[in-house]
């Protein structure tokens, strides 16, 4: 007798969480490129029109951002307008959950073979630095220290709070605009 396999509830919850985190991170990457000079300087050498994707293999949640020039990013949801230039692919939903719930640092996830890089490695290194900088801004220090290899020693509380507030405001605004447009 054929029976339909039921997906466990925990797996569904993780899928929803990862999906939501990608939506937040995509918008936050756009926001941090508008707020922080250091991120802007890191992003500037990327080619204009460069498309960066993070996704869960084989066809799971994803985020796509574009470098629109001068160090600024634009969030494209999960749809890429052209072929992707650089993709960081989590091999499984569980691996994405470990990283996005800050149980495993991004650098440790790379070392643990949780992810594949498809594209120019030097750009992947640069994008990892940008993701680390973003996480240092938007996460409480105690959580950020679990997410990044080294918390930036020169990031003082006032700068962190002001930047985080601006990033979260931009993320919320983008969410509202998206909801109104749909």
């Amino acid at each position, binding site marked *: 007798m054929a029976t339909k396999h039921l997906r466990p509830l925990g797996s569904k919850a993780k899928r929803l969480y990862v999906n939501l985190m990608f939506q937040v991170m995509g918008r936050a990457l756009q926001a941090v490129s508008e707020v922080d000079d250091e991120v802007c300087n890191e992003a500037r050498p990327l080619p204009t029109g460069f498309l960066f994707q993070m996704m869960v293999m084989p066809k799971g949640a994803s985020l796509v951002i574009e470098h629109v020039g001068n160090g600024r990013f634009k969030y494209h949801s999960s749809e890429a307008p052209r072929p992707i230039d650089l993709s960081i692919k989590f091999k499984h939903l569980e691996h994405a959950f470990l990283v996005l719930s800050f149980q495993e640092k991004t*650098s*440790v996830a*790379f*070392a*643990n*073979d*949780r992810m*594949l*890089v*498809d*594209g120019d*490695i*030097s*750009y*992947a*290194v*640069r994008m*990892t630095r940008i993701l680390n900088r973003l996480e240092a801004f938007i996460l409480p220090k105690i959580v950020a220290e679990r997410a*990044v*290899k*080294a918390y930036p020693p020169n990031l003082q509380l006032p700068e962190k709070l002001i930047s985080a507030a601006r990033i979260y405001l931009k993320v919320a605004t983008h969410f509202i605009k998206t909801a109104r447009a749909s």
Partner: protein
Amino acid sequence: MSRQYYEFFCPVKVIAGKAALEHIPYELTSLGAKRPMIVTDKGVRAAGLLDPVIGACEDSGLEIVCIFDDVPPDSSTSVVRTIAALYRKEKCDSIIAVGGGSAIDTGKAVNILVSEGGDDLAKYSGAGVIKHPLNPFFVVPTTAGTGSEVTSVAVITDETKGVKLPFTSSFLLPNAAIIDPRMTITLPPHITAATAMDAMTHSVEAFTCMAKNPLSDAYATAAIKKISQFLPQVMDNPKDTDGRLELAQASTMAGIAFSNSMVGLVHALGHATGAICHLPHGLCMSLYLPYVLEYNLETIRQPLGELLLYLDGPEVYSATPASRRAEASIAALRKMRDTLYQQCELPRTLKESGKVTYDQLEAIAHMALDDGAIMFNPKEADLKDVRAVLENAWAG
């Protein structure tokens, strides 16, 4: 530093020891190969290193169908296409790469084209693009350092676009690596020293960087012990066949270690210095190793301290307080470099190399920051940190 998860993979058959080359015909025919091609460079051929390989095959009635002996030090897509055309014209069915890193990488790239078809090597560039097993591929290393005979990567320059194309696939791993001391017995002292220090660096970084694991640790420590013991012996007596074999095996073990655990900042700096200043890779490794270990020290104190056992032996290890072992390991490596400098003037600083100018340090630092190896360095390094390591490495 412990890892909750790791992967380890090495399906290469290692054929090592006296008369190892004579096993090639049996191993090739057992894979159904009857028409092998040799890929090598002019230096290897001029040194007479092909003679025992060809002789070993002919004695068993296996004809080497053709030989391409013009692989340049920095191989290119056009060279790979030329060799692939020759392979197809002569209806070859297997490749034996004889040489150092460039000949081996070229052999891997040729095998992609002749197995997958076509002439566009670039379309196979990247990680995991190759999906099928390739034709039989054997490697006979003629240096003891790169470990390319057991790695699943190759780098080939696309001269039309001016970029280096990386290829990563487990299908690039050779079917067999043949380690025969006859292949390294004529290596000049400075190349023996630089390539051995390359293998040493592979091992030390494999043991101290983020992706270390119990299996790569075992290979790394065994390689360090062999290099520490046999490099001085071979430098004193270059014709020491047993010592040469030990160094060649150490190089292969170091290759297995680092290809399963990756490397760190020493390699990031070495790749950048090689690209900008054209300094040989092994020399770069020897040059940067102690300075990077000093930078990483507080993050790797425990594993680096453990290495003293393999670098200086049990007596020194037990006589050194646990809290000083990491520093003692760095001191042992510095002592090794000082001895090599006295024996063959292997440079210990960028200044001593005579090929790097001070104003190139900034460019080296920027390029090193974007190198993939830096991801696996145990301590985060920003531009200021990398620049500080380079300042230390400039004059010691």
